[in-house]
């Protein structure tokens, strides 16, 4: 149960990051268009946020790591994604008005809406590795399995969002749905008891 929930968190945060990234392009298009540099800005911000998230997650895993804390990381990422829903349009409108160059306008927009939730989501994988690895011999195997699960989640998030969700739902409905899912898996992690022989 403990390991299942751990992998579930990794799977979900991979899904969550790519889902938001794809929807990010949609959110910015009415304000900055869908030029190649708008996608460039979005991908840059996600990559940068993830890279720093890995660093932060590894660092945070050093002291008193627990599944409960990992659950809180996932909940926090969802919380920090809330402004996309609550203030996205206001912010994008203001930025598009103040920054005439659409390259830097979209970069600033992506930074302010997606950087923090993506950074926090990036913390999940290295933190989860710490919880999974008991002895050195299996460290690579566990880490490999975890990256498999999390990147598979990213692939699923990309495909489902771009092929189906946008055809069935409105952007905000998809975002609320993803936040609800984060709440669910985050709470599950907070409630599951660690195995006796951790």
């Amino acid at each position: 149960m403990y390991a299942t929930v751990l992998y579930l968190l990794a799977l979900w945060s991979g899904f969550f990051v790519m889902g938001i990234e794809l929807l990010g392009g949609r959110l910015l298009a009415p304000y900055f268009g869908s030029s190649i540099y708008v996608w460039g800005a979005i991908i840059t911000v996600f990559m940068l946020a993830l890279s720093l998230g890995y660093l932060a997650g590894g660092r945070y895993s050093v002291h008193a790591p627990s599944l409960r804390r990992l659950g809180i990381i996932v909940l926090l990422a969802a919380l920090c994604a809330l402004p996309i829903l609550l203030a996205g349009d206001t912010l994008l409108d203001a930025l598009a008005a103040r920054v005439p160059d659409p390259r830097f306008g979209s970069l600033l927009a992506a930074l302010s809406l997606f950087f923090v939730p993506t950074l926090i989501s990036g913390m999940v994988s290295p933190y989860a590795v710490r919880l999974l690895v008991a002895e050195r011999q299996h460290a690579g195997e566990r880490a490999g399995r975890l990256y498999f699960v999390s990147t598979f989640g990213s692939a699923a998030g990309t495909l489902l969002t771009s092929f189906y969700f946008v055809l069935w739902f409105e952007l905000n409905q998809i975002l609320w749905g993803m936040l609800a899912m984060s709440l669910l898996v985050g709470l599950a992690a907070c409630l599951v008891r660690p195995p006796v022989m951790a």
Partner: protein
Amino acid sequence: MSRGAPALLALLYAAAAPAAGTLIHSERSQYREVLVYEDAGTRCLCFTHECAIGRQSCVLLAQPDRLVFEYTRMMLGALFLTPDPHDILVIGLGGGTLPRALERLLPAAHIDVVEIDPAVVRVAAQYFDFKATAQLGVSTEDGRAYVRRLLRAGTPQYDLILLDAYERQYIPEHLLTREFLQQVRQLLKPGGIVAANTWSSSRLYANESVTYHAVFGDFYNLKSGNRIILASAGALPSLEQIRRNAGRFTTAFEPLGFTPDTLLPLFSMQQDWDPAARVLTDQYSPANLLNALP
């Protein structure tokens, strides 16, 4: 693969490919391949090899003023709704056929063109004799960003806006939403006209129709291979008025190679779509997915 296979494949490919003619220019832009083919005195701009998914623009080299494509002629049907436009916006340049025709037809008009791809602007200038002048300006920018910028800046308004940014293989989805059309409508002077060249023959047809209807109310629908939507920011002129206005262009259309009355039978206000279809919005805009579905 056996040694004969590549030759066989080449043969099959040659047989299957449409005769696009000789490739005289090719470049890879930020967005796509921009290709120019020439065949028997016709020069065409294509975004796919051998023009496999349609030609964007064609000119007859001996008669460059003639409008080769029916859709460009149908787009000029917008002039029957607003015969004397002073300020015109064209979103999507292609080979520049449409803005050039408008420039010749309306020497007093001011025309702004927005094209996202700088390579297309270059190729139109080099191979299709498209020249920016004091009367005809080109901005290299995303159409939606341009419209938003203009709305913010104040009131440079248009009598006529032509949307020619949709391709058969790709629709810029943010240019086919209720919010975008509302912005376009705001850029129009009272009674201004919007003309949109669209492809849709798929499930998108109904969604597109209800979206335009949500913003402009009833509109004229011209169908013949392509589909042209002609809508108004005010009252839609009657067919009688359209017929009268069309008569004014008999001589002017001559160098373009057609007569206005060939367009008149195409004007229809019949709502041949499911009115319950979902309106496309910035929140819901899967235009390309809908276009790909049967």
